[in-house]
């Protein structure tokens, strides 16, 4: 390992062990190597030339959901996610990307030159039932080995959300919607719901049509070059569009634009100012609906019926890292009234962890099953949330543990509220 920044980051760890209490993975692994303290120690050892096996460190760093719980609990504010991601990137340079990912890697998106990689990616994508999704989409990172393996696969719709937009719809506007590839290609209904309800603000709304992947899947996999390419392309285009605000229905995409972008585009980068511009204008879906006035147009929610049947799952990045949990709850209370109730274990990670799910599906699903069954036991019938990964995961888990549990995006509930079609939210 070489990255000089890493030493300064790992040096802050006091080895106190506080991170053990919150780690999503620790209860599954019951070994120090799973928790932040162990990972930090490994990176440290590698940096000081102690020479642990690079592939094994890579393995240890990959075995992490990047849920950020350790970082938030750490009394020293050790930047664990940054250490893990930088470490992965460093090792990817040193020894390449883990074999299980290498088929599809990197170049898929932003480097048109990498035709060979793209061709291979496309070939694999077909195998993955993702043939309909453009190879530049981040989805390909998420299912590098195929969707199978016992997963309940979302049926891919004939048309993505953006393709279904009429030509004159949403080309320019003061507000820009960044749909994200999952809500574009896999759950276009969410894309549509977000779009319609954001429009209820009365502002002119444009859908960001030529979005590259937000870059998160590449970044967390250690492929910083592809991630940078995605991010730079997005920043340039968004800056040029000069929006008043950019709305993100997906918490993971938002994290990329609000925070991770600066690890890829540091101060010295000529795009830095543009990245700041974009970050400053990037908002989560719930905050936008609350602050834009759209919320005031919502009809009053019905009272008293089905109290507490709709829950909210906190996406790690959105609620934890970005602190947007309260906004989502406020919006839900306005949209569905008493039907919203705090769900059991709301802030527990769903176990998806982006590429973690692809890497270790059995563990990912054990964590997810526990999550969904706890919610169901607590009386939650509809789990709502605001992150594409969480929706993918929890739909799959609901199908395993309790198919009667529905998993929706909060935008869908808001849309139902607007249309007066409340029943739909629960029955469908």
């Amino acid at each position, binding site marked *: 390992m070489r990255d000089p920044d890493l030493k300064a980051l790992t040096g802050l760890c006091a080895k*106190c062990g506080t991170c053990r209490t919150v780690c999503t993975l620790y209860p599954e692994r019951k070994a120090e190597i799973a928790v932040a303290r162990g990972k930090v*120690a490994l990176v440290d050892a590698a940096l000081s030339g102690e020479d642990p096996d690079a592939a094994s460190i890579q393995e240890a760093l990959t075995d992490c959901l990047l849920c950020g719980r350790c970082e938030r609990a750490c009394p020293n504010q050790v930047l664990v996610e940054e250490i893990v991601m930088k470490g992965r990137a460093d090792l990817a340079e040193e020894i390449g990307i883990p074999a299980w990912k290498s088929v599809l890697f990197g170049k898929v998106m932003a480097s048109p030159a990498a035709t060979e990689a793209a061709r291979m990616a496309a070939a694999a994508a077909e195998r993955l039932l993702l043939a309909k999704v453009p190879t530049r989409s981040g989805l390909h990172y998420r299912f590098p080995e195929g969707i199978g393996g016992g997963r309940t696969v979302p049926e891919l719709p004939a048309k993505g959300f953006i393709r279904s937009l009429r030509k004159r719809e949403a080309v320019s506007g003061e507000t820009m919607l960044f749909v994200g590839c999952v809500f574009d290609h896999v759950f276009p209904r969410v894309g549509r719901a977000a779009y319609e309800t954001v429009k209820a603000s009365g502002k002119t709304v444009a859908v960001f049509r030529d979005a590259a992947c937000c870059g998160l899947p590449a970044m967390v996999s250690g492929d910083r070059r592809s991630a940078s390419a995605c991010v730079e392309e997005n920043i340039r285009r968004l800056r040029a569009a000069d929006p008043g605000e950019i709305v993100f229905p997906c918490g993971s995409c938002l994290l990329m634009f609000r925070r991770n972008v600066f690890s890829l585009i540091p101060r010295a980068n000529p795009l830095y100012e543009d990245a700041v511009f974009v970050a400053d204008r990037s908002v989560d879906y719930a905050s936008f609906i609350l602050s834009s006035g759209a919320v005031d147009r919502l009809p009053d929610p019905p009272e008293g019926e089905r109290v507490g049947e709709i829950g909210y799952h906190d996406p790690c990045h959105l609620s934890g890292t970005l602190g947007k949990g309260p906004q989502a709850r406020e919006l839900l209370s306005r949209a569905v009234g008493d039907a919203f109730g705090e769900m059991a274990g709301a802030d527990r990670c769903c176990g998806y962890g982006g590429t973690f799910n692809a890497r270790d599906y059995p563990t990912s699903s054990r964590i997810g099953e526990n999550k969904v069954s706890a919610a169901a036991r607590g009386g939650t019938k509809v789990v709502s949330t605001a992150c594409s990964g969480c929706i993918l995961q929890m739909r799959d888990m609901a199908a395993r543990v309790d198919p009667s549990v529905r998993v929706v995006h909060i935008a869908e509930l808001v849309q139902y509220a607007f249309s007066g079609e409340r029943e739909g939210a629960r029955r469908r």
Partner: protein
Amino acid sequence: MHPEALSALGNLLGDRLRSSLETRICYSYDATGNRFLPDAVAFPVDAEEVRQVVLLANRHRFPVVPRGAGSGFSGGSLPVRGGVVLSTERMDRIVAIDPVNLYAVVEPGVVTENLKEAARKAGLFYPPDPASLKFSTIGGNIAECAGGMCAVKYGVTRDYVLGLEAVLGTGETVRTGVTTAKGVVGYDLTRLLVGSEGTLGIVTRATLRLVPLPQAAATLLALFPGNRASVCAVNAIVAARITPSAMELMDRTAIDCVQAAAPVALPEGTGSALLLEVDGTVESVARETDLLEETCRAGGALAVRRASDAPGRDELWKLRRSISPALRRIAPVKLNEDIVVPRSRLADMFEFLAELAERRRVRIVNFGHAGDGNIHVNILISGTDADETRRAEGAVEEVFRRTVEMGGTISGEHGVGISKAPFLEMEVGPLGGISKAPFLEMEVGPLGVSVMKRLKGCFDPNGILNPGKIFLDEAAVRG
């Protein structure tokens, strides 16, 4: 370690023996920040496996170092002579909670907070609460006789251990103690094992005393102009015949350290803080909270904050719990001591510490369990300036001498372990060439040390268990 020994262990434990460098690195440290690589890490699931490991250790002569969460402050779980780190992480079942006879039976790897929570659900209370309670284990607590915030009212871990099952250094399993409220048959082996730092036996099961759960509790944070004012307030509280369940003092530097993790508004001139807690019936808590606030204000408190609901109390406690790790942000090396003096001498001790810091030109941060007279004296150094290190070492020695002179003890809860043992300097670089071990004799006398060593010989004749701890010169096996 001999390859034959490793393969015998592998046959015994299968994939629960790990000897990859990565796993060994992950079990090479504890909260002291020092590091020693073990030769392998074992993850037994029950007492029988622990016993088998120790039997193998006797056959092949390798050290066995028990480890809970590795949150110790005296290096107790560090494999200083190599060998096998025996992690109790997979022995984490709460076997029983008996609400009639008021006890719990647990495996050693149970995290303290989990036991407290399970007891709470049964309307019961397991009082010991080290600041590390959310991650430290019962086994580690017993081996260090961990104290905590509420020791002033409820006592320390020792006071709650009714009985133990432990594997001795010979591989024999002993059962000690009782499950009744009383018991006086023979020597008290339970007490001997408590605080023995993993050098006499490996605890494989513990029977712990529970008490009824107090109905209510409230927390106060009082800010004072200086340490002396805080200490006077503590004494005034005791004189007012209130027994708070916690009386924690933090000096100004300690408060400043945690502002990022747990921000509090500080009035002008704040020089120290007292965190107080009372528990009992709803009425007594309300009355005592008022009385505490009054006493603090009369004692010159600049501000008092109160919280009686769980989240509010948690927020105040976070301030205290974050201190120790947060010191890392100011200085890379801390000499972390936990002396105790009689409460009546606390103010003098603080005065001495302030004078010492100035005279020796070192930075000292003080916080701790004021109610018990237990101060965590942390001397912060860069670790790279030889002169500064020497001055710091000298300061520690002075602190210890003064403590013993005042009728106190050099470690209230962290134990002896290896902290700052001379060989640390040799193996991990210049950290400060002193150890608590030479002071051990200063406190218990040569005969005391000699009796302790003879006891060690009875429990662990081959020196298998945690060699190199407590006694520096002890002959022991090497991995």
